């Protein structure tokens, strides 16, 4: 009734090809952005922002990165955590070398280091595919994890072996380091994520995105119609690693404030992959939904038992969380193998025909 494109005539190609061609969608995104930029900092507590909203944003960006590679180009990667780590350590080194440069520029620049590393480890993708490639990317994961532990140069010979994020200011307000408030960090994170999501949405709608999808659907056929496989696949690795790298840098600088090698372990890679699959392969909105689901579920599970007056041992809760998370993953795969994004689409379709059943 309300959500319908009837009567919205487009008179220019520009209007027809807009990111949100339907007026209601535009209104919706403005409301969501307003809530995210103004509502959350005003209403949510400091704790909620730093333990839920910032993680969701960081994970969303990493999930978008992996989704570009796995969902759009069809290359399965298990090395996401390591590429995020490259971003984090790269950003730390850059911040050490250029103490005067704006931290935002450094975070965005550290993605390029990650992209370069991603291209190197993407080289085998020219020859191998499918699960073989997934295992090959594990080589990247384990090698880079090892580097994070064994190369003290990466952490400036810090004895604890961890990154300690220096304080950097933006317009006189501390953005990173121990003095930065959660709200500031949240707003900076949100701005970067919005900007990069907008870039990604234009990327996948354009020529490059279509090339990626052609390669995903059938690489031989794509090659036959004149797409250069090498470049397309490596470009996908580069862009994906760039996104993951920026996400990793934000994780270290804007979320944790410090970071050790364990943060970027294989489990991190698996978690990002869950988000992409649960959210929906080949869908940007799905990356957000997946990130919300995967990082929200453990928090929910921790919060629910005390509501019913049940007190449980911390270890028991952890084990139950692991079980329930596993069961939920299987459940979602059975109910909706195309992910939450598909549910979103079905909901929109239902809304369009409402209140009539057809």
């Amino acid at each position: 009734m309300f959500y319908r494109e009837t009567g919205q005539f487009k008179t220019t190609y520009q209007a027809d090809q807009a990111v949100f061609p339907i007026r209601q969608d535009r209104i919706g995104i403005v409301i969501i952005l307003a809530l995210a930029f103004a509502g959350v900092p005003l209403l949510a507590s400091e704790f909620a922002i730093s333990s839920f909203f910032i993680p969701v944003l960081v994970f969303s960006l990493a999930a978008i990165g992996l989704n570009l590679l796995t969902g759009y180009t069809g290359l399965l990667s298990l090395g996401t955590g390591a590429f995020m780590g490259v971003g984090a350590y790269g950003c730390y080194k850059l911040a050490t070398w250029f103490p005067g440069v704006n931290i935002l520029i450094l975070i965005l620049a550290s993605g390029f280091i990650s992209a370069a590393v991603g291209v190197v480890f993407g080289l085998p993708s020219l020859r191998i595919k499918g699960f073989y490639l997934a295992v090959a990317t594990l080589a990247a994961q384990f090698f880079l994890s090892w580097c994070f532990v064994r190369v003290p140069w990466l952490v400036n010979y810090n004895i604890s072996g961890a990154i300690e994020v220096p304080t950097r200011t933006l317009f006189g307000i501390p953005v990173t380091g121990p003095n930065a408030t959660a709200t500031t960090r949240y707003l900076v994170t949100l701005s970067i994520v919005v900007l990069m999501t907008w870039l990604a949405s234009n990327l996948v709608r354009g020529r490059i995105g279509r090339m990626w999808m052609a390669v995903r659907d059938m690489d031989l056929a794509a090659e036959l119609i004149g797409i250069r496989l090498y470049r397309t696949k490596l470009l996908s690795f580069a862009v994906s690693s760039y996104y993951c790298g920026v996400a990793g840098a934000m994780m270290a600088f804007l979320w944790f404030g410090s970071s050790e090698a364990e943060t970027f372990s294989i489990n991190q890679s698996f978690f990002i992959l869950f988000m992409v699959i649960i959210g929906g392969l080949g869908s940007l909105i799905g990356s957000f939904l997946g990130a919300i689901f995967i990082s929200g579920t453990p928090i929910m599970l921790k919060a629910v038992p005390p509501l019913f007056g049940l007190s449980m041992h911390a270890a028991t809760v952890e084990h139950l969380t692991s079980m329930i998370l596993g069961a939920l993953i299987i459940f979602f795969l059975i109910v909706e193998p195309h992910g939450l994004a598909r549910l979103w689409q079905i909901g929109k379709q239902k809304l369009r025909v409402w209140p009539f059943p057809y």
Partner: protein
Amino acid sequence: MDLLYKIFLDPFVQMGSAPDLLVQTLWEGLVSGVLYALIALGFVLIFKASGVFNFAQGIMVVFAALTLVGLHAMLRHWGVSSGTAAAYLALALTVAVMFGLAFAIERLVLRPLVNQPDIILFMATFGMTYFLIGLGELVFGGEPKLMITDDLHLPRGAIDVKMLGGFVSFQKIDIAAAVIASIMVAVLAVFFQKTRIGRALRAVADSHKAALSVGISLEQIWVVVWFAAGIVALVTGIMWGARSNVSFALEVVALKALPVLILGGFTSIPGAIVGGVIIGVGEKLGEFYWGPLLGSGIESWLAYVIALLFLLFRPQGLFGESIIERI
């Protein structure tokens, strides 16, 4: 120049000057290779018959071992006085649990997901991994446990053999592991070649549709295959548990089965064995002779790099079926 010397000459000089150490290293590599191969074997069984990339195989190993140890402790607690009796009772019960697990997986996970893309099934096994970790720790506790080596009458201690101007020490449990692994592979080979179900399994591996059309029940085959993989996991778990503790820390080591798989090919049982031995030996040699150059701990990624190098030349692994693509 000095570096080249250290990489290409020094290790071999060391090998030549202390052959007993070399033999010892080779033996260690062989044994860990056999254990990797056993995990890979369970994986290959499942991949062949159902096309599922079973990430949970490593966890099934830990889960089986944990169930065995946990049940043994429970039985002793409930008043089974003889350790040996409790151990064998626990073993039988664990086999039953593994069957129940196979049945449940087929019913609750595989059957609803029939005909989904590979990646979805792969993710489902991830879900199983998390579920099994949670379940195992919830029921039996998360702290590391000792394998009930004595009660199962597994040999202990070491045999020192004087050879090549030194002593080489063979752990008895390692010898037992190698022997049991060979027996298991032989039994599996006979099972696959000679029995009715084995033939049905191979038929399913060749083509699901053709197998269905001649009246083979896919559901039944899947239960059998997952059960067989569960048994392999149990044996692996016992052997591995006897070498170190039983805990979910083994999970990381279980990931080592993956390079073994890409080396040997996802569909080949001999490939899993050969791949396991190559990875195990390569890793130990690398760690022992080249490790000090790079700083220790290269064991964690060397296996993957070896496998990656192989893949660049043979994308389908050493023994895998060659990949043919049609448009």
